């Protein structure tokens, strides 16, 4: 049996694969955060709550309305995205002219409301739903055996991330968005309705978080607090990557997931904190983040 640093290869590969699954969620969430921050200048603390709502929406749909996984995968981000649109229209909109810290505080409050409400409605214990027929079982990749669902999570997340990147960086819609980030007034003067773009961007960013929620539910348990524990890690990921960069958010999300998985093998006690330690080190040597420019 081959060993890596004295650890059996299957264990290392297994943890790395799990790390990559977690990294996919980090990537999806930090991508949404980066897009929202870019256009709105708001650090969306409620991102974890929307991720949690995405998982709950899918669970509700599947257990009460008997929709299947694939429908939930599309419906849940749409429903949660619509909720995001409502939040932006009714609350966030009023804060663009003042200190961006208020946006952070507002979304913190919203996250508390969402968590409290769901705890009151469904309790604190975990829920879950089954993996769809098509994605059950495991497959042999030649060097390791992996549950198909995990492979699906990784592939789906990476595809969604790079599609988002492509849309933002390589299409005319993306060019408009980026222009609106740089100078909303001038973009508006070209007859483009910037406030609508801003609203839809928030909805889309939040929808990405919900998508991550739907994907994650069969892997981890659905609880009202699943988002708040994740969002702090994602904040650290975003600080490490540098908030301005879309590609940076995706790459650092995946990378940190893998590093976390690897830490679980060599020093399990530190696996919860390794991302924060890396953040501190990165800040020390590159305050703008790995991919940020300042």
């Amino acid at each position, binding site marked *: 049996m081959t060993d890596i640093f004295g650890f059996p290869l299957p264990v290392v590969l297994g943890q790395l694969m799990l790390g990559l699954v977690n990294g996919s969620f980090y990537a999806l969430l930090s991508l949404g955060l980066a897009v929202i921050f870019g256009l709105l200048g708001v*650090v969306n603390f409620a991102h974890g709550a929307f991720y949690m709502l995405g998982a709950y929406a899918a669970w509700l749909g599947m257990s009460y309305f008997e929709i299947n996984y694939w429908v939930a995968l599309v419906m849940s981000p749409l429903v949660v995205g619509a909720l995001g649109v409502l939040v932006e229209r009714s609350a966030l909109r009023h804060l663009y002219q003042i200190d961006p810290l208020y946006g952070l505080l*507002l979304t913190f409050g919203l996250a508390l409301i969402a968590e409290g409400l769901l705890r*009151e409605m469904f309790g604190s214990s975990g829920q879950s739903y089954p993996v769809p027929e098509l994605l059950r079982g495991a497959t042999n990749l030649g060097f390791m055996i992996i549950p198909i669902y995990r492979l699906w999570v990784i592939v789906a997340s990476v595809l969604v991330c790079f599609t988002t990147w492509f849309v933002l960086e390589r299409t005319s819609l993306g060019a408009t968005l980026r222009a609106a980030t740089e100078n909303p007034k001038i973009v508006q003067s070209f007859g483009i309705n910037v406030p609508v773009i801003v609203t839809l961007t928030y909805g889309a960013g939040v929808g990405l978080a919900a998508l991550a929620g739907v994907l994650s539910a069969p892997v981890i348990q659905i609880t009202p607090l699943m988002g708040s524990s994740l969002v702090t890690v994602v904040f650290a990921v975003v600080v490490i990557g540098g908030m301005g960069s879309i590609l940076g958010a995706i790459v650092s999300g995946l990378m940190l997931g893998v590093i976390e998985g690897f830490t679980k093998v060599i020093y399990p006690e530190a696996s919860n904190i390794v991302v924060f330690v890396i953040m501190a080190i990165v800040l*020390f040597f590159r305050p703008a983040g790995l991919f940020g420019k300042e």
Partner: protein
Amino acid sequence: MSTMTSSFKTATTVFYSVLLALAIAAPWLNIYPVYLMTLYCFGIFACAFNLLLGFGGMLSFGHAAFFGTAAYVTGWLVTDQAWSTLSAILAGMFSAAALGLLFGVIAIRRSGIYFAMITMALAQLVYFVMLQAPFTGGENGLQGIPRGDLLGLISLKPDNNMYYFVLLILVAVFLGIKRIVASPFGQVLKAIRENEPRAISLGYDVNRYKLLVFVLSATLAGLGGALKALVLNFAALTDVLQSTSGEVILMTLVGGVGTFFGPLLGAGVVVTLQDVLSDRVGSWVTVIIGCIFVICVLSFRKGIVGEWLAFLQRRREAKKA
């Protein structure tokens, strides 16, 4: 505050005197002393937080780390190491100061939102360390922390003795912060808050000032935590939790950021709210706290004291015109 009229000054002095008299008389007024002491501890915590946010212009989302660490250190020293109360409190403050120095050195490299996110992430790190460290009692926390005595003279076990001890410290912290803000150091902080590039161009080493106020704030937050551990006889994971960092922000926001009395009033509002609601409505407390956050941010950003001062200001101007 040169624009302050003499009548306003007199009114403020009278207000604080009445308040202090009430606080001194409280044990005879049949108010539950542990409730008031909890309020005072969180009041110290909120004043410390306000020193950083209101006068230093930095929003820390990780202040629970200092509060909780000091609570753990003080609790552990008096319980397991049989330290005297005063030296354990000082050690708790020292640990918070050291942690504050570490946080500060890392976090002040960025400002604004990044600063908030970094402090939050570092506090989460502290949470996980406290969860696993050998001396914190893991999920159970430290229970049955004794209050001890003052220099072997006065026992702090009776609630009334402890009450006056905490009140004395609260008053000292309050006056100390007023003094800091009025000092030349406080004026430089104000300059940095209003216009950082200008302060730099005037030759001030801005980062050193920021670091100093951060460490000061962390130390005082630690004092609040150390006292809380003694008052309630326990230190637990809730003390280092993100929600506690959120609570202290809420207290300051509700009372009025950058006012002297605001954080105390805010601590009163939040502690009372939790005291009244927690056994009656369960998870709804979180929802209610969240709603207060949203309302404050959307339409009540000056806080209670801030709005009151603004009202007085408007009335004065109306009189002049």
